[in-house]
């Protein structure tokens, strides 16, 4: 036991000496000797085990993207066009094949940033984030992702390159990306997360990422589940397209009485029956007017909380609205 402890202290000190500073190769215009390549290689390899274990595959609605865990309790950063909706259940797969359940938090539809929370209990492997924004143009970087979807035999796909262009809300590298990498992490050679994969140019050497500073600019909104902006990376549902699959009439005892149910509609699926009395909609007293205005405001896929009385029993459920036929 003591031996193990000594080793740990030792590796900590060595680690500190080697990686506390910015690696020298970043300040050369390009590697000049094979020694420079070897330094890049050993820096990259020293971070691979940890960064790979925190790089996850996200699966939902038949689609697949990538993401990275940044806290012990399972906070995840990814791209808005991967989660595409807020408060959505998403499957999270680790490189070793373990699966967890995640829920999408907020997203920025204009810059392609998004957050997600793993709902299972941690601790999870996670990476450090370059919160001080220390990475500069020309720095060597490496990219991880579940390219083309989850493939256990292949594992996480690793690529290396340099930061080649910089703008406020987008950085470009020459690490190559492909479909399925979206939402995956880009690291500096100190093993810190610097950006999230977003999109590619026509050439194989043009890869665009959302920098961490863009996540920081909207951190609290993203974490609290807000849908930001009106951009092309994610679309809000269209108001008025949501469908509950139920017809009601106002009851003289208060609330809305169910008089018709659509077969396989969302109302039927959560167990509403003919004659049941809906007493609350979205936490407010149920009225015909409230029902009409809520459905006009919400779209397909949006959520609505209902409370109703069925056979003397009070029930409560949040339903996801279907598509209006």
């Amino acid at each position, binding site marked *: 036991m003591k031996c193990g402890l000594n080793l740990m202290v030792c590796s900590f000190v060595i680690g500190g000496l080697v990686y506390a500073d910015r690696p020298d190769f970043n300040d050369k215009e390009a590697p000049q000797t094979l020694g420079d390549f070897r330094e890049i290689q050993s820096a990259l390899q020293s971070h691979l085990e940890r960064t790979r274990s925190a790089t996850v595959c996200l699966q939902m609605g038949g689609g697949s993207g990538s993401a990275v865990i940044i806290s012990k309790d399972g906070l995840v950063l990814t791209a808005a066009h991967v989660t595409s909706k807020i408060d959505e259940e998403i499957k999270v797969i680790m490189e070793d094949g373990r699966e967890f359940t995640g829920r999408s938090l907020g997203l920025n539809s204009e810059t392609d940033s998004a957050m997600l929370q793993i709902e299972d209990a941690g601790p999870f492997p996670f990476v450090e984030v370059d919160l001080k924004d220390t990475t500069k143009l020309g720095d060597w970087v490496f990219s991880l992702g579940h390219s083309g979807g989850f493939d256990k035999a292949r594992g996480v796909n690793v690529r290396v390159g340099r930061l080649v262009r910089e703008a406020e809300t987008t950085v470009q590298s020459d690490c190559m990306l492909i479909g399925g990498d979206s939402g995956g992490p880009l690291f500096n050679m100190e093993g810190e997360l610097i950006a999230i994969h977003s999109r590619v140019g026509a050439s194989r050497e043009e890869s665009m990422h959302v920098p961490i500073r863009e996540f920081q600019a909207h951190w609290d909104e993203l974490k609290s589940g807000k849908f930001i902006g009106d951009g*092309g990376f994610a679309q809000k549902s269209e108001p008025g397209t949501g469908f509950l699959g139920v017809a009601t009439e106002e009851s003289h005892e208060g609330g809305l009485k169910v008089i018709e149910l659509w077969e396989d509609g969302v109302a039927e699926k959560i167990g509403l029956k003919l004659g049941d009395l809906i007493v609350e909609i979205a936490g407010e007293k149920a009225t015909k007017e409230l029902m009409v205005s809520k459905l006009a405001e919400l779209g397909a896929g949006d959520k609505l909380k209902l409370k109703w009385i069925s056979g003397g029993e009070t029930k409560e459920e949040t339903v996801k609205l279907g598509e209006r036929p």
Partner: protein
Amino acid sequence: MKIITLLVAITIPLVANSLPSEKRKNGPLIQEALSPIQVSLQESSAVFYNNETSKAFLYGTVVSDDGLIVTKASEIEEVESYYVRVGTKKFRDPIVVARNDVWDVMMIRIKAVGLKPVDFSQTKDLSHGTWVVSNGATERRFRRPRAGIISANKREIPGGSPAVLGVGLKEEDGDLSVDSVTEGSGAAMADLKKGDKLLKVDGSDIKNRDDLIAYLKEKSPGDKIKLTLTRGDKELILEVELMARHKLYGQEKTRNDQLSGGEAQQSSRRTGFPMVLQHETMLNRKTVGGPIFTLDNQFVGMNIAAVNRVEAFAIPGKELSDLVLELQKTP
């Protein structure tokens, strides 16, 4: 599983700070720093040139000092006649010695002495993130080195390309007959015709479609089978050469294939290998076939497929060494 698509768009404003292209990963400054490995690439690579166009279309790996070269079979057979360059020397009239369709490798001999073959004795397993150096573009006297890293687990790539006859089949009243013949297929060359009733394959009875498919499953592209059939009131026996499905019908195209530049960039055969190393060096279908080396000039393997935008496959040195011994024994 649908893959979340990367949007193809350049949205970085022109005012952005930009790194000059010569300093980028595949730029000339990096190539220059790799010049100590360029020597190995120069000596142990072969370059195949189309006789008709004099254009380079494929690399090869030199495996003996007296002129044996291995390369990617499915690419080289696309070109009718070719010559070879090793180092700066030109060699005419190469001869095909042997081939292996499992690995998609062809062995070719040129009349040469004193070549510098790759050294199989030094190959070892490389971990993720290790730099490897391949041939990029070629000039007449000079192979340009291009670097990438080992990017994923060493593994088998399932799939492969099944052997096909090139016919559509019809089952009617207990008879199995030819319904259509695909142009350019082995069946077309053997002169199979619509309406032929199939009775036997290599002497065994075929009762239905499943019997024939099960039999073909055990066969490889290039194998020949004898079909016994009746046409009108005649009984015929035709010998048919089986072809790889992808050659006849093309490989299935995914959205990621489209993102990868399609046929000009990707090897047409890119699945079905017993073992590969994966790296991320930017190759295309014309720059596979050659050797790859570590920064210490150790031979790592032979590039066998430009798979897509982010993935290249190589046959590992150990497996290639065994395969070369086997091919050399071919009578």
